């Protein structure tokens, strides 16, 4: 049991992610999270404003079930499977973060400077959270997939489109991490 309670090493996670993908195809569907964003928009009545969302969302109930599972999985892990909420980080990473204004790096899963209650109820903090989500949602649907659809499925198919998309993920991620994040929290 102790193995389950410890943080899982990358190779265990990698094997199980491949298994999750396999199971979704084996059950006759596909593996991709970001298309659920469109389904939820459709449920919310987005079809009244943009024709694209006039599809019958009920045909995607299987994927919404998967998303409900994600929420339950997060709850189960948090309640019973994570006795230590710390993240073991490279001391260099902790130092780099402290220099850009993020203190106590690794003491929990998420930095308070971005996800804490004080940040949530400040204009700047709220806009950072909203912008991060907006870019992810817009970019994922523009590119036609996120880390699961392009990163796992597309690369496994050796699809050229997914290599381009993942290269894009890294260009964007490197720009944000090296050139923008250092100026946001100081």
């Amino acid at each position, binding site marked *: 049991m102790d193995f389950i309670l410890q*943080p899982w090493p*990358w190779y265990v*996670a*990698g094997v199980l992610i*491949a298994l999750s993908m*396999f*199971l979704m195809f*084996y059950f*006759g569907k*596909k593996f991709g*999270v*970001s298309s*659920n*964003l469109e389904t*939820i928009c459709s449920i919310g009545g987005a079809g009244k*404003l943009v024709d694209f*969302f006039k599809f019958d969302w009920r045909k995607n109930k*299987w994927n919404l*079930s*998967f998303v*409900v*599972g*994600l929420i*339950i*999985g*997060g709850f189960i*892990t*948090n309640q019973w499977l994570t006795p230590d909420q710390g*993240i073991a980080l490279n001391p*260099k990473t902790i130092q780099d*973060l402290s220099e850009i204004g993020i203190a106590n790096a690794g003491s929990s*899963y*998420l930095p308070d400077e*971005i996800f804490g209650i004080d*940040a*949530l109820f400040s204009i700047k903090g709220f806009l950072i959270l*909203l912008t991060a*989500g*907006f870019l*992810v*949602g817009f*970019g*994922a649907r*523009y590119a036609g997939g996120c*880390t699961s659809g392009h990163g*796992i499925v597309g690369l*496994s198919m050796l*699809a050229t*489109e997914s290599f381009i*998309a993942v*290269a*894009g*993920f890294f*260009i*964007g*991620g490197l*720009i944000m*991490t*090296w050139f923008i*994040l250092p100026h946001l929290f100081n």
Partner: protein
Amino acid sequence: MKYLKFLLVGVLFGIILSKAEVVSWYRIFEMFKLQSFHMYGVIGTAVIIGIFIMRLFKYKAIKTIDGKEIIVAPKKKGVSRNLIGGIIFGLGWALGGVCPGPMFVLLGKGIASILVVLSGALLGAFVYHAVKHKLPH
């Protein structure tokens, strides 16, 4: 009940993302800082095994649970859509430290502020479809 199996795969995937700390903002930061192998190991292992799985599907070695052929839809063509969309996605991924899967996992972990991120993601998906006819694909 026919949706229960998808829910259970979701539970499994949610536990994996959480236990391997993929849902941690710090793991995404260190990945883009090139200071840890962890995320490269996670994605790399999944893709290497995934390549074998896709070969099995392509050569029809496995059928679905209902005995049907497994068809993996090809990705949409176009350099602009994948590159520009990818860059926009990457900017958000590194800022919030979450891609769409972890957003829902963190919701289950009881992180209130993720609701703002998720609202942003829904808004982003909505705006994309509202303006897509003006964008290069």
